[in-house]
């Protein structure tokens, strides 16, 4: 045993490559470390450490696909050592493979249940997956083990925030901020929590103080913009979004928000990157936030279908093929589960949403596509087509409705929801960055596309704080 250890001791040069590479990585000089770590990992039978460090360097450089390969090698040759499982978990999360990431984090905890870093990461993964009780348990253990660490406190705060426990979140995030007042990320999280708790003024105070205290940070300006917007301070919100956009000029999300606030002309539909980024960022906490918002659309649509198809509601028949456009995390699929008798096809342009939907196990096919592209490619006919809370990313509806009608099977149902604009308006781009549609316009667009509303309900589709958001939910069929 001793001899084999001696034989497997890497030569001094290899050790230096890894040591110096690790030191550069720790100093935040990932680019400089690459040549060292690539060489270390190229040595025949390189130790897991070499692959693992290379994975971390590539991850830091944003070369995620290569990082994943290196992390695979590290996990394989390191026999599942927790640091490399964690690295792979982080890389997978960054690649949008959050469930696989969760598996890795869980494996890391099982390999060494005492490892705080692993627990913390698993806690975050669980939190994002909406498994709040387990998440909070782990995040709390990690925090208790290192009560002086601002990062641990911040992560626990994050867990509370995700779980909707805003008072508890404020307590630990306040603590974290006191420990690391220069860290803009912590302040941004605390402001986000205040905003989620329905206290935009406090969110503004937190963010503004941090803007003065910390280095310029895109997250801070972004949450500051959201909070100001919530209070109707649109000009000030625009300033904040514009500042954020200057710091992250490639962000379609921010560009769209700036446009929505009048910083630029409103585009005819939302920038594709805006939709993908909003939902990639929120995928796993999306459902929780929708339920917290009192989201009613799935239930309303279910009852509309049951009214239109009493034999299905009674369990004597099943639905034909269903197309769920903008399926998100698969809420509609889960809602319709008992009625399904044929294919259920989901389409969404956020890969993270698709992954969440896939985890529900009810969709027969999931396509990560833009809705219009999906419709162009689609050749089948559907018994039910669903557009739940997705037309808020479209201004003009008529062309889309025409495409939809073409995909309805004889007697098929088209269910859609929109946010209500003023009755006389056609459509408007709201401050929230979402489109709203006027009733008359919607009816006209349906008629123009050859669709007849079987039911047209105008009522609150969700609540924002105390305020109901009015919408129209329609069940339509092909006319004539």
């Amino acid at each position, binding site marked *: 045993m001793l001899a084999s250890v001696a034989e497997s001791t890497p030569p001094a040069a290899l050790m*230096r490559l890894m040591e110096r590479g690790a030191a550069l990585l720790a100093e935040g000089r990932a680019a400089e470390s690459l040549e060292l770590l690539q*060489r270390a990992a190229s040595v025949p039978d390189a130790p897991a450490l070499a692959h693992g460090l290379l994975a971390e360097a590539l991850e830091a450089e944003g070369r995620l696909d290569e990082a994943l390969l290196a992390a695979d090698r590290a996990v394989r040759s390191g026999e599942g050592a927790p640091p490399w499982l964690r690295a792979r978990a982080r890389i997978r999360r960054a690649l949008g493979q959050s469930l696989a990431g969760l598996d890795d984090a869980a494996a890391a905890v099982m390999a060494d249940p005492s490892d705080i870093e692993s627990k913390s990461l698993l806690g975050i993964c669980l939190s994002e997956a909406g498994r709040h009780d387990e998440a909070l348990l782990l995040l709390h253990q990690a925090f208790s083990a290192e009560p002086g660490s601002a990062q641990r406190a911040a992560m626990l705060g994050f867990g509370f925030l995700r779980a909707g426990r805003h008072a508890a979140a404020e307590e630990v995030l306040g603590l974290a901020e006191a420990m690391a007042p220069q860290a803009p990320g912590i302040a941004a999280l605390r402001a986000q929590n205040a905003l989620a708790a329905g206290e935009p003024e406090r969110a503004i105070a937190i963010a503004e103080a941090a803007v003065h205290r910390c280095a310029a940070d895109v997250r801070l300006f972004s949450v500051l913009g959201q909070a100001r917007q919530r209070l109707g301070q649109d000009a000030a919100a625009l300033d904040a979004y514009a500042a954020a956009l200057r710091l992250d000029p490639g962000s379609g999300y921010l560009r769209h928000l700036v446009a929505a606030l009048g910083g630029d002309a409103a585009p005819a539909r939302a920038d594709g990157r805006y939709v993908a980024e909003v939902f990639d960022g929120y995928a796993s906490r999306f459902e929780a936030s929708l339920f917290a918002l009192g989201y009613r659309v799935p239930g309303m649509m279910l009852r509309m279908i049951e009214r239109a198809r009493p034999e299905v509601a009674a369990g004597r028949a099943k639905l034909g093929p269903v197309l769920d456009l903008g399926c998100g995390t698969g809420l509609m699929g889960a809602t319709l589960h008992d009625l399904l008798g044929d294919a259920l096809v989901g389409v969404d342009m956020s890969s993270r949403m698709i992954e969440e939907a896939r985890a529900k196990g009810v969709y027969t096919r999931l396509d990560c596509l833009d809705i219009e592209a999906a419709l162009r490619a689609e050749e089948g006919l559907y018994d039910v087509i669903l557009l739940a809370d997705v037309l808020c990313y479209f201004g003009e509806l008529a062309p889309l409705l025409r495409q939809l009608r073409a995909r309805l099977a004889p007697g098929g149902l088209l269910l859609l929801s929109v946010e209500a604009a003023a009755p006389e308006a056609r459509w408007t781009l709201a401050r929230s960055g979402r489109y709203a549609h006027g009733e008359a316009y919607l009816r006209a667009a349906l008629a123009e596309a050859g669709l007849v509303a079987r039911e047209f309900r105008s009522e609150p589709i969700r609540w924002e704080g105390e305020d109901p958001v009015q919408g129209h939910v329609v069940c339509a069929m092909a006319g004539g």
Partner: protein
Amino acid sequence: MDGLPGREALAAALADMAAGQPARALPTLRALVEAAPEDAVLQLNLGMALMDAGHLSEAEAPLLAAAQAAPRHPEPCFRLARLRHLRGDTPTAETLYRAALARAPGHVAALAGLAEVARSLGRPEEAASLLREALLHAPQDAGLRLALARALVHSGEAAAALEELAEPLRRGGPAGRLGAVWAEALRARHGSERACALAREQAQAHPLCAARAAGLAVLCEAEGRGAAALSAWRAAEALAPEDPDILAGLAQSLARHRDHAAALDAFDRAIALAPDEPALRLGRGEQLWRLHRLSEAADALRAALRDFGPDERTRATLALVLVSQGLQDEAMAEAEAAGGENALLLGLTSVGPYHPEAGRAEVLAARARALHQRLSEGLLPYTAPPPRAEGRLRLGLISAHFGKHPVGWLTVAGIEHLPREQFEVHVFSLGDRPGEIAARFRARADAWHLVEPGTPDAMLLERLRGAELDILIELGGHGQGGRARLLRHRAAPVQIKWVGSQAASTGTPNIDWMLTDRWETPEGFEPYYTERLLRMPDGYVCYSPPPAAPPVAPSPAGFSGAVTFGCYNNLAKVTPRVLAAWARILDALPEARLVLRTHALGDGPTREGFTARARAAGLDLARVEMHGAVPHDQLLAAYGEIDISLDPFPYTGGLTVCESLWMGVPVLTLVGSSFAGRHAFSHLSNVGLADWAVFSEEAYVSEAIRRARDIPALAALRAGMRARVAASPLCDGPRFGAHLAAVLREAWERRDRPA
């Protein structure tokens, strides 16, 4: 050594030398030589130990004594030859190498030295045959084989060179040199790009080979891929941490990446292994200067000049150090001594404008014309891109300073507000800077071209020309990291100089315009510039105040009853005449104080020297506070300690003036004739405070005294200052952007018409 008989002492000294510890042998050898000065062996060994320890200037005397005492011995001749060779005296070195060979025809090192002389004088075939001869005597010597390979590359026999290198690459050799020659041979054989790819493949196959890592680094550098080169140097260093050539390569690469502390460390390690390498000593001095360790930098450079004799670049760097210490006369003398183009450049940019005499517009103009003439030789032909149909002009910006740097603070708002429908902006960033200002440049840029540190001139010119620009604005000048000189070959039909070492005319052929204003260069100033003057309607810059700047503090004189003056400019600007003026002001105001704050004052010996000069100028030091540098936010807050900024002259404040005004503190300036001499005048006029500018030293002193006596007026001015500056054209981005667009269009339309 007292207890040891001479023979044993000598044996111990020789053992030290053999062990690579020549410095340890020196005391013994000196004592022995003193006791027996006629002993050739002792003199020779003392000379060799001195050379090996890097004390080149002292080595010549004992070597000459040895040569005299033992005229038939080859070694003193060889050592003297080597010494002359290191000091750049190639002809004498050649004669002495031949003398050594006449005494011992098989002297391998002399053959190698002579070969090196032959190669450097463009006789590579002769070098190769000398080296083949040397290899007959020492077939195992890897160094000789490398030198032969190098000579072969230079003789156009790259394939033969690669064959020579196969053996050392397999068995190992001096990794850094081996890698460099290998890279040279690969490039000669396959061209730069293919050579780089081959070196990459080899890295995979031989991941632990330091020579190949060094070779890859060299090839990346030649390809303009400085970041990859740095990483490869890091790998080479990890694989061969004791190789001086690799450490030198790493040090230079780190320096180009502005990581001066790490570069200094690498230079120190390299020098410990190769004390007689002039480039390392110069590099070390440069890093010390960049780290504001000015007195150490001056010592290091002076020692290098002593050891290796006069060297243009070493003198030029020493001139920069001296001016940073506030020694304008000494710096000017050193710059002149450097001679050649260095003298002209320094006189025009980094040293001359600070000097009371050399900084006058007429003197600068003469230098600019001389430089212009010198740079007009060997210009590469240029063809303008075909005119585009659409109306947008393609505007290039080139600088190393798109970030938190005066160039950033003084240009970003103007660039941001250049109308997008009129200008397509291409930014050529020499290296990368992090932070918010950098992000703002990126946000405005229609195209971002990162030029990695160390990108060769030819490659940069090709990239600039490849962008088919209509107008190119240069924002770095001849200062550190600037590439203004390159633009003499022209990269756009219209080339303009703007902020960034904009102290005087650039004296650069094909830089057509100087972006300026009527205060910087009023009518009649045209003869001082080799460029045409492109005047903005307001000031020539647009200041972006830092968002995190603290609020304006109340006037300190309001509490103390007496004025506190301040100057937060660098010491290079503070001349003896400035000190004398300040002394007169403080003399007249017995309660007044003066606060100075700059990097150089944090360097002990520099501060002592400055203190002595201040005392000599008659300043009452009891009323002068001196501080080293502080972080930027603290520097801004420190304006709360002062009532009036006293601007230095002849090189006036630029960004410092804007910051002082933003922090509520008015600036009293003496207007000079050079561009640098009128920065402050331009900014003050632009915010409506031209009455704070004076035109003689007498007026400077009397006006300071008069202003200091009216504390209520100072308080009132201070209270409204930030609002005044914010509302002025100095901070009006949209207005500036529109004006800039108009003058750029004017320059474009007048491009084919002579001045």
